[in-house]
């Protein structure tokens, strides 16, 4: 029987599906409207559409992978569960005080994010450990029971437990958890030493509280999806994308939903990494540009870079830290993304001092760009691309939406070009350059500022608008190669099918690296391994090949920011730890430009990731052509390019008629339903054996 894998990514406007035939690797695309009321409806509609389009039986799904923003949306819109907090006496405001800072420096009208736990349901319970984990004051079980009784009577759904210093000794948290299970068995329970056993009480408590807050909604959602899939007749393993780029099964999602807060954007980076790797590229900048923002991620040596400094629902946090404290910190690993307010809907405007600006305000989907003719009055990036000839007014979304080029031109002319005293096309080109400069800054932030040279990376561009801008960005930053996958608009859904199962563990253990006993370290990792095996035991064993990754998080003693190094597989020895020391110095030199050989290196966290590798998909053989793309030519169009001073005639290609091996000369434009690719003068593109467009200098 033919079997299929299905990836479903729910976005703000569309629910995207990618259906792949396991045997042939053939990909079909599904797009249905998102159903914000109950996203599960849109999900099931996409599943149904996949079935009908491919005329397949529900039982022939072999794997379902899902990316969802349900947890994040619940937090942003405040529709999360009623949570009660059990913490150490004297610290009941740990979540509200947070970092004690204001997210914006000069705004006297701002507010803190809505607390996840009402102060009414925050209880300080007598108990205390010292910084080494010694019990100073025993847990007052009586006080705890009274608090739980009040919570139960008050309609609390989820309980979060976070005591001071529990990361080093969870004895009181474990005992409190037992009591919760005993007296309040219906409550969802989130224990900080289980969810996030890292030091620093606020981020740990916040992680556990985010987890508790979304447990009810995620559990109901996952239950609903599973029962509907079962009713449909699908028994395929069902996985949910995590923020760290791995997937987890429904049970794990119910227990640790905090791991899926950045479910959606992670899939795009995974896709970019996997696509590039298939071409032998290990280092990738992923560039996902949609309607309102552009997201840039980094893949180093085949692995997406991860960050543990993330806040759910925050404004963008600037390098200065402004914006910090505007969301809910979570200390799980999240694929590191830099996001800028530059998308197709970003507005071009002139500020009060006469400077031309692009974004961050966006016309969004409603009213949208001027050229959509749906009420948008201010020129956007999409209007600009249209004026410059980069979009075909009659072939936008495959012709579904006719664009009003005259209106776009008039808006840009009257509102921007004329006030600035510029020619229309010069001005449009300027708008493009400013937007590109903003995106370049994001790319520098994630590469140069992390100590990596962008010239050693491949740029993988996707999202509706990514391929329009990718070549110009690569040119400016000196990236030698740009790769545009087929169907760039749904690359994230495709990425879902390229993931592996991941379980993460962490322990804080602060001691000097030179004094660490490799045996003890090994024992902690062995314990993690055992727990990971138990979790992976429930998966289909014939599928999985398991790999384990061990990280140490190190810093010079006295610093408070750690750097990660990888430990190789096998027994730990002093020599391995010495190598880790060397790796740390290398990373420190790259990140900060110096090392401090006289300072001792301190171990802070042990991090362990168990990866259950899912079998990789067969890749469809892309039809090979003669190398001559002329059969794909749709016509020619006048395009404006920076510095040329006049419009240049460009060949327009139909992406669906291009064949493997075809080579294109820039300037050229490649059109497909969900995106257009611009190839600059001086560049060329080759269609590779998987149908990717590979752009490089001619």
């Amino acid at each position, binding site marked *: 029987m033919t079997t299929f894998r299905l990836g479903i990514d729910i976005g703000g406007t569309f629910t995207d599906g990618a259906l792949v035939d396991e045997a042939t690797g053939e990909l079909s695309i599904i797009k249905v409207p998102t159903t914000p009321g109950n996203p599960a409806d849109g999900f099931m509609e996409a599943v149904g559409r996949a079935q009908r389009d491919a005329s397949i039986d529900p039982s022939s799904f072999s794997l379902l992978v899902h990316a969802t923003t349900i947890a994040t949306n619940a937090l942003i819109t405040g529709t999360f569960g009623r949570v009660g907090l059990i913490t150490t006496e004297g*610290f009941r405001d*740990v979540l*509200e*005080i*947070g*970092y*004690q*800072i*204001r997210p*914006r*420096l*000069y705004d*006297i*009208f701002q*507010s*803190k994010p809505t607390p996840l736990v*009402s102060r*009414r349901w925050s209880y*300080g319970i007598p108990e205390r450990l*010292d*910084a080494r984990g010694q019990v100073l004051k025993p847990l007052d079980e009586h006080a705890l029971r009274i608090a739980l009784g009040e919570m139960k009577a008050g309609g609390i759904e989820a309980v979060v437990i976070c005591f001071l210093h529990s990361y080093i000794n969870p004895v009181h948290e474990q005992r409190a958890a037992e009591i919760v299970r005993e007296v309040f068995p219906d409550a969802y329970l989130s224990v900080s030493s289980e969810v996030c056993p890292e*030091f*620093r009480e606020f981020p740990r408590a916040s992680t556990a509280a985010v987890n508790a807050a979304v447990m009810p909604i995620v559990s109901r959602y996952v239950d609903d999806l599973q029962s509907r899939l079962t009713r449909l007749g699908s028994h395929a393993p069902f996985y949910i994308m995590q923020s760290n780029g791995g997937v987890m099964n429904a049970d794990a999602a119910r227990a640790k939903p905090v791991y899926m807060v950045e479910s959606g954007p992670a899939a795009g980076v995974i896709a970019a990494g996997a696509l590039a790797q298939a071409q032998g590229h290990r280092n990738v900048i992923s560039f996902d540009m949609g309607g309102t923002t552009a997201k840039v991620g980094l893949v180093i040596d085949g692995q997406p870079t991860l960050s543990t400094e993330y806040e759910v629902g925050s404004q963008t946090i*600037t*390098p*200065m*830290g402004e914006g910090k404290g505007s969301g809910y910190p979570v200390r799980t690993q999240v694929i590191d993304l830099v996001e800028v307010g530059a998308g197709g809907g970003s507005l071009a*405007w*002139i*500020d*009060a*001092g*006469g*400077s*031309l*600006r692009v974004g961050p*305000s966006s016309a969004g989907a409603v009213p949208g760009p001027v050229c959509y003719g749906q009420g948008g009055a*201010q020129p956007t990036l999409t209007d600009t691309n249209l004026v410059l000839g980069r979009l075909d007014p009659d072939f936008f979304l495959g012709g579904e939406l006719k664009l009003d080029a005259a209106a776009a031109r008039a808006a840009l002319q009257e509102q*921007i070009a004329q*006030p*600035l*005293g*510029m020619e229309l096309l010069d001005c449009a080109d300027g708008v493009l*350059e*400013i937007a590109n*400069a903003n995106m370049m*800054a994001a790319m520098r*932030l994630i590469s*140069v*500022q992390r100590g990596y040279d962008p010239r050693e990376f491949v740029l993988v561009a996707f999202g509706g608008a990514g391929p329009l801008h990718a070549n110009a960005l690569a040119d400016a930053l000196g990236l030698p190669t740009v790769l545009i996958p087929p169907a760039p608009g749904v690359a994230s859904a495709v990425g879902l099918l390229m993931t592996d199962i991941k379980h993460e563990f962490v322990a804080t253990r602060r001691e000097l690296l030179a004094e660490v006993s490799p045996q003890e370290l090994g024992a902690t990792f062995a314990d993690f391994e055992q727990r990971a095996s138990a979790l992976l035991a429930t998966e289909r064993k014939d599928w999985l090949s398991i790999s384990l990754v061990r990280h140490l998080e190190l810093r*010079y*003693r*006295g*610093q*408070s*920011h750690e750097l990660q190094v990888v430990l190789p597989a096998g027994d730990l020895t002093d020599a391995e730890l010495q190598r880790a020391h060397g790796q740390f110095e290398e990373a420190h030199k790259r990140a*900060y*430009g*110096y090392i*401090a050989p006289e300072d001792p290196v301190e171990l802070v966290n042990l991090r362990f990731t168990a990866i259950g590798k899912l079998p990789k998909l067969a890749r469809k053989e892309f039809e090979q052509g003669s190398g001559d793309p002329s059969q794909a030519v749709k016509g020619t169009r006048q395009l404006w390019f920076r510095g040329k001073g006049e419009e240049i005639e460009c060949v327009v290609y139909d992406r669906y008629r291009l064949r493997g091996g075809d080579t294109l000369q820039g300037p050229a434009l490649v059109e497909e339903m969900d995106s257009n690719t611009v190839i600059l003068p001086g560049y060329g593109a080759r269609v590779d054996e998987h149908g990717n467009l590979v752009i490089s200098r001619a």
Partner: protein
Amino acid sequence: MPSQINSPAKQPFLGDGLDPVRFEVIRNALVAITEEMSATLRRAAYSTNIKTRGDFSCAFFDRQCRAVAQAFAQPSHLGSLAHIVPRSIEKYGADNLRDGDSLLTNDPFTGGVHLNDITLITPLYYQQELFGFMANIAHHVDVGGGAPGSIGISTEIYQEGLIIPPILFVRDGVIEDNVFNLIRSNFRGVHEISGDFRAQTAANRLGARRMQELLGKYGAQELRSYMDALLDYTERRAAQEFSQFPDGSYSAESWMDGDGVTDEPIRFTMTVHIDQGKLAVDLSECDPQRGSPTNATFSQTYSAIVYVLKCLLSPDLPVNDGLYRLVDIRTRPGTIVHAQHPAAVAAGWEVAVNLCDLMFKALAPAMPERVVACGKGIMCNLAFGGSHPETGEYFTYYETIAGGYGATIRNDGMDAVQAHFQNTENAPVEETEYHYPVRILRYEMIDDSEGAGEHRGGMGVRRDYTFPGHQPSFSILSDRADFPPWGLFGGGEARPAKYILNPDGEARELPSKITFTVKKDEVLSVQTPGGGGCGDPTTRKPEQVAADVAEGRISLQRAQDVYRVAVDPDTLELDAAATARLRG
């Protein structure tokens, strides 16, 4: 939302030969460079104060020492660098510098602030010609002097630590060992400071490299003309916004508790003159400087005023010389807001933060929709140090504690945040207890501490310390025990600060400025003020009052007496009928 003008103008704003696109690209590139410097400094630093609490800022100055681009973690540094850099360069002489050099300074009387804030200035050359300066300023936990953390009850600058005039700290890219050793011998906590100085050096080095790249792309002449345009652009925008302020002279006064040496309160008076878009702040009638640490240098005063201006202006307005040109501050040298040598200045930021609240108060009648009631109104400098009871190593620790933010006519003040130009993070209790011989017994918000109002002020915070097994020296340089934060437009005062020894035993109130020894098993409770309220509290929505009562922020009694709202003591729900009777 930035204001947008899309109406046709008669001529381009930016001047002849300047491309608006290139202008925007360069403008963003310059800010990105200072932000990248900051990211480097923060991540590479060692001390909790710089790393976790973010107590530093970075900037780029042109060769005329005009601030062109700045990135602030702490707005308190807004005006500081703008004075330190030109004064230091003038004093040392730009001609005495060469490529690879860096100057170090913390001299309060050469444009500086207090001694803990140390500035590193690195000249930038392009094609053998001076193009500008990279600079950063960072708060070091200890710079020597009479008390751990270098904050104590000093009477002249010489007691506050090592004074560093502008001196060569880096030559040919290498830190001068002799100078560094001298510094290290004077500062407590040698390990941290080495890392922090290296981080400061790394930040300027990186900034210089990025500027070189930008210069390589545009050339010196072109970049200079765009930088000039950027300063003019900022001035034009700021002036345009000032011109919308209503003309008039607006005065107010405020007070500080005693100065730590005497109990005599300190008086500040401010008059803001607005005349057709020209804005002048007159502080010349403020009290004379004191023989105590409660004196601000002119830079500190300047920073406070610029902070408030920045709050009044569009959020996306750049901060550079174009704005500074428009700032007219009138002081008398030798006063509390313009201290002269040899004044002690360790608590100068306490003076400056008072000025922020005062300026909003002065402007309240002129622009009620743009001001905020008095917030916690203190920096709340706390430091302790001594010999570690286990290792015997000398330790020193510094922190500040949040309090309430003031309310506005639009919204409640935030609970438990830092004040105005101060935005330093707290150090986690787990980290503090791990690294230092201290136990934190309580870190919570204080019930009934808010200033009442239609919009209430934020809540103050309480942090209790005890020191098992040893008796460290503890310094408090704070304020507002005697003069609580005020409300606006009928809003109430907040609870003042309290500094209490043994709050749960034989309690003893301490003054807001003191250095003393904490004895074995004693508990020190630092309790910061709430923020002032805005508008009549009896017009606050009863549901909001009831919600605050249910959450234990406001007591039943206070709800009834001050807000005239009745809440059922059992269900903690609003008693609408009784409230109606109370409000009559």
